[in-house]
C-alpha cells in the first residue's frame, strides 16, 4: 500500500451543496467519505466519532455554525471552508492561510483546495496555528453574540445570551452563570465585554458582567460603593467605573 486513504467529512445544511462536493470527490478516489452532516451539532459528533482527516465545512448552519464548531474542537482536522458570501468570514479568511471555497465553485478550484490539503496531510503539518488566527480574526466581528458555545467534557452546550445572568472572571476562564446552570469558558472577560450587546450587558466591575434584565436593585454599601442585587438574590460589587456605566446605560 503506497497511499493511506484520507477520511473526509462534509458538513453543510443544504443537501444540494453537499451533493456538489460528493460529485467533485468522485474524481478523488484517494478520499473516502466517512459522513455527511446537516448541522453543526451532528458535525461535531461525527468529527469526534470518525476522526476524519479532512472536513468540508459550511459556516452558516443551524444549532452551531462553522466557527463555533471549530471553537470547541480539541483535535482539529484539516478544514476546507465552503461558504456562500459572508463579509465577516471572508475578512477572517484573508488573515489566515486557510483555504476556502466560495459557492458556487468549479471542479478545478475544488481540486486545487483538495491538493493543498493533501500535501499538508502528507507532510504532517497541522492547521492549528491558522485556525487559531482565524478564530482570533473572527472575534473582531462587528455583530454581537447571540449565543455562546461551551464544551463540557464530551458535551457541547449552546447558551442563548438571554439565559445569561452574570459572567465572572476566574483565572483564565470566564464563569457563565445562566438561569439553570454554571459553565466555564476559556476566554478573557474583555472578549465578552466587546462581543455581548452593550444594551443588554454591563461590566459593572473588573471581574463581573451582568445582564441588565437581571438587575433587581442597587444599594449603597459604603460611602462610595454600591452593590447590585440581582433578581436571583445574588449580590454583585459595583466599581466606580461600573457605576458610571450603569448611570449612562440606565439613565438615572
Amino acid at each position, binding site marked *: 500500500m503506497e497511499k493511506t486513504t484520507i477520511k473526509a467529512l462534509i458538513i453543510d445544511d*443544504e443537501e444540494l451543496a453537499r451533493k456538489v462536493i460528493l460529485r467533485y470527490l468522485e474524481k478523488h478516489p484517494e478520499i473516502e467519505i466517512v459522513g455527511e452532516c446537516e448541522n453543526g451539532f451532528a458535525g461535531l459528533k461525527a468529527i469526534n466519532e470518525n476522526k476524519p482527516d479532512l472536513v468540508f465545512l459550511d459556516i452558516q448552519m443551524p444549532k452551531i455554525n462553522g466557527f463555533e464548531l471549530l471553537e470547541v474542537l480539541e483535535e482539529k482536522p484539516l478544514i476546507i471552508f465552503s461558504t*456562500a458570501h459572508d463579509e465577516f468570514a471572508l475578512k477572517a479568511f484573508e488573515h489566515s492561510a486557510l483555504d476556502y471555497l466560495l459557492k*458556487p465553485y468549479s471542479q478545478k478550484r475544488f481540486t486545487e483546495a483538495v491538493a493543498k490539503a493533501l500535501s499538508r496531510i502528507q507532510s504532517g503539518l497541522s492547521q492549528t496555528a491558522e485556525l487559531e488566527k482565524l478564530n482570533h480574526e473572527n472575534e473582531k466581528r462587528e455583530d454581537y453574540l447571540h449565543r455562546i458555545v461551551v464544551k463540557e467534557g464530551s458535551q457541547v452546550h449552546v447558551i442563548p445570551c438571554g439565559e445569561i445572568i452574570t459572567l465572572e472572571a476566574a483565572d483564565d476562564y470566564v464563569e457563565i452563570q445562566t438561569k439553570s446552570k454554571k459553565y466555564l469558558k476559556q476566554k478573557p472577560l474583555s472578549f465578552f465585554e466587546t462581543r455581548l450587546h452593550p444594551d443588554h450587558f454591563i461590566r459593572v466591575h473588573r471581574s463581573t458582567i451582568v445582564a441588565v434584565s437581571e438587575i433587581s436593585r442597587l444599594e449603597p454599601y459604603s460611602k462610595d460603593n454600591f452593590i447590585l442585587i440581582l433578581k436571583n438574590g445574588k449580590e454583585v460589587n459595583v466599581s466606580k467605573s461600573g457605576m458610571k456605566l450603569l448611570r449612562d446605560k440606565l439613565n438615572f
Partner: protein
Amino acid sequence: MLNPIVSNKKHFLIYVLSMGFILLAHFIILYFSFNFSLEIAISDAAIYTTMIFLLGIGIWYIVKYLAISEQKYHLILADHLITGGILVLIWLFSGYYSLSLIFKDETRYLNFLDDSLPWRFVYLIMVYALLVMIYYLINYYRQYHEKVLQESELKQTIQQSELNMLKSQINPHFLFNSLNSIHSLILADSEKASEMLMELSEFLRYTVRKDHNEQVSLKSELENIEKYLDIEKIRFGNRLVVEEEIDEACLNCKIPNMILQPIYENAIKHGVNESTDTVTISTKCSPVNGDLKISIGNNYSPGNLSKRGEGLGLENIKKRLKLHFKRSDLLEIEKSSFYFTVHIIIPKIEPEKIES
C-alpha cells in the same frame, strides 16, 4: 418674472376695477364738489386715470429691475425718487396740457387746473408709491412661494431616495447559495436546474427593476414572494413548508412594492437557517375594517429566542410605512418562544384617490 397684471386675467380685472373706482372718485369730486360740467368732470377723470392705468402697468418693470434683495436700500430709494419723479411729472403735465387745450375757453376750470397742480402732484406720488408697494409685495410673495415649492420638492427627492434605500436589496447570501443549488442541480437534474434558474431570474428581474411606481398590487407582490420561496424550497428541501390563506378580495389592493420581502427573508434567516426541524411560513391576507391586514408567521427553534431582535429589516418596513401612510402604528410584532408573527395593516385607500 411675468407682469402680474397682464399675465393673469383675474389680476387684470382687479386692476381695472380699482382704476374704475379711482376714476369714479375723481369724477364725483369734480362734478359734485366743484360743480364742473359733466363733460369737464368726465374728461379730467378719464385722462388722468387712463394715464395712471397705462403707466401703472409699466411700474412693474421698474420694481422688477430694482429688486430689493439685490441692491442697497438707499440706491433703490434714489432710483425710485428719480423714476417716480419723472413718471409723476409726465403724468401731471401731459394731463395738464391736454386738458387745458381741450377746455381752453373755460376760465374757471383753467384756474382750477392751475391751483390744483400741487394737489395733483401729491396725489400722483401717492398712487406711484402705492403701486410700487403692491408690486414689491407681489414680488416678495412670489419669491417666497417659489422657495417653499423648492423646499418641498427637495424634501420629496430626499424622501424618494430614502425609500429607494429602504427597499430591500438582493441579499448576496441568498443569491450565491441559490447559484450553488442551481450548480448542483445542473450536475444531477438539468431539467430542475433550468426550472430553478428561471425562477431566480424572474425574481431578480422583479427586484432590480427601476420602477417609479411605488405602489403595486398585492397579487404581483405575492407572486414574486412565491418565486422567492420556491427557490428557497429547492435549497432547503423539506425543511421549509409554505402555507397561504389569501382572501381573493384583497388581491387588487395596492401596497408599497417589495415591502413584504424582508419579512420572508427574516423568516428564512432566523427560522429555516437556524432550525433543524421543519419551519412553516404562513401568510394570511384579509380585509379588516376596510383595511388590508397581512400576517406573516413562522415557527423557530426555541434556542434562538434571544436572537430574535427587531432587526433592521423590520425597522425599515416601519419607516417605509410611515413615509407612505404617515402612520407609525401599522406594523405589529407578535412573539412567543417558538412562533414569530408580523402583522401589517395597509390603510384603506379611497376609491376616488385610485382614479386620480
